[in-house]
């Protein structure tokens, strides 16, 4: 129960850091998922999940009023659901690998929900803003700080509510994987590695759009030399 309360609180912090402040990027998947791994005693898995989601959402940035899927919340809630399912249903490592793909699909759905809720909160902020201005124009004393804190608090509450509902839902969905036929579980396990191809492509395309193709060549040659170095090391 204590862990669950911590998960909900962190969900609020992730939502707040993404859209309101302090925007020190603790909401990025590589940070939030690693923290989850640390909380559940599986730091390496947390870091791997963080890297996977980070590459997937590398090109998605909270720029002004841009309507982008909330990748940070998607990654956090999905990984929290996965680790919770792992603890509740006693999923061993292989099954956890099989759940990676469903977890990534779930993160996209959560990201869309996050986007919708953020849009609603921004509309509410606008209404509150108009009200504050009207009161100020009448000459009454108004605390701008208080109105602003309400806006920041809305983001915190948004994250916490999403966490309360979507983490247990995700955990239940991921638990269902255990009752699937063994052949499907095997296929999902293999796919969990294949999907790295898609997430690396997502990261590469972000830099590709800057017209720096020749630098990819340098990096790729470096990668090949690194593999050769490791092969030589193996004898």
């Amino acid at each position: 129960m204590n862990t669950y309360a911590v998960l909900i609180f962190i969900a609020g912090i992730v939502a707040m850091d993404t859209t309101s402040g302090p925007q020190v990027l603790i909401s990025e998947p590589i940070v939030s998922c690693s923290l989850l791994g640390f909380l559940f005693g599986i730091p390496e898995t947390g870091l791997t999940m963080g890297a996977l989601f980070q590459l997937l959402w590398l090109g998605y940035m909270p720029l002004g009023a841009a309507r982008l899927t909330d990748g940070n919340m998607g990654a956090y809630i999905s990984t929290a659901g996965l680790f919770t399912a792992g603890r509740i249903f006693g999923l061993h490592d292989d099954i956890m690998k099989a759940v990676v793909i469903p977890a990534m699909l779930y993160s996209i759905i959560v990201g869309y929900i996050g986007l919708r809720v953020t849009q609603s909160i921004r509309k509410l902020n606008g209404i509150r803003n108009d009200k504050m201005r009207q009161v100020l124009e009448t000459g009454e004393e108004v605390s701008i700080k208080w109105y602003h804190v309400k806006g920041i608090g809305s983001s915190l509450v948004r994250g916490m509510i999403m966490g309360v509902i979507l983490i247990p839902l995700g955990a239940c969905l991921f638990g269902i994987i255990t009752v699937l036929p063994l052949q499907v579980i095997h296929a999902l396990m293999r796919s969990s590695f294949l999907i790295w191809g898609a997430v690396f492509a997502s990261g590469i395309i972000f830099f590709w759009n800057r017209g720096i193709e020749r630098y990819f060549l340098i990096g790729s040659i470096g990668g090949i030399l690194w593999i050769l170095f490791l092969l030589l090391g193996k004898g």
Partner: protein
Amino acid sequence: MDTLSSPGKRLNLRTLLNIYLRSFFFQGSFSIKDRQNTGFAFCMEPVGRILWNDPADLKAFRLRHLEYYNGNPFMVPLVLGAVARMEERLLSGDGMKIDDISQFKKAVSQASGAVGDRFFWRTLRPFGLVLGLLAAIFYGLWGVFVFLALFNIPTMLLKWYWLTQGYKLGPKVVIELQNQYIARAAHTMENTGGIILSFLAVAFLSRQEYEISWISAGTIGIFILTITLLKRKISHSIVFPIAVCVAIIFGIIIDMFP
């Protein structure tokens, strides 16, 4: 910081520090209609309380900073500092008009938004992330701290620098928007980020104990498929489920013919 305590100026280091800390929550009540107007007024509040003692003046101050504002959250200290100086000049009757402040905010918000978004969101953040991922391969969880330090240390230093420069230079601070060091740093980080990410992609995707296997071939195939679809400007939210379906089908095929 002698400029902050020289005669004729009313704001002190403490006020600037207050603005600086508030600027971390600049986007707190972002609205679709007026964007970050409340955030701007919230950050300027300490200035208003010091400069404008008359309630009517304070009310006018608050209302003019509740105007529409849309800029980059990491570059806003530059505008806040300059506007604080302009407010001081308005109070002392130093040739400054209310319209000048309004026009300055409108002009600089867009320019700082473009420069800041490019530098912080499109360059520093992804560069910090790929370097953090590289560090994670060698040092595990330390990679997370590498990323956080790489992004936050320069950001926090630049925010303070821009706030004090803005306050020192007033509207002339727009020259900071054309800072060549920033432009050069952004260019270098983009290129280095590309090199590191392609290195990681080759080194990681060819893993599988460095043997040619169906898994490696499938991973590279999905990589090429995803790149091709994304280059055609198809949304991630469509491309990724397609890649997942292909990966699952490929996983089933490999399982059937091991």
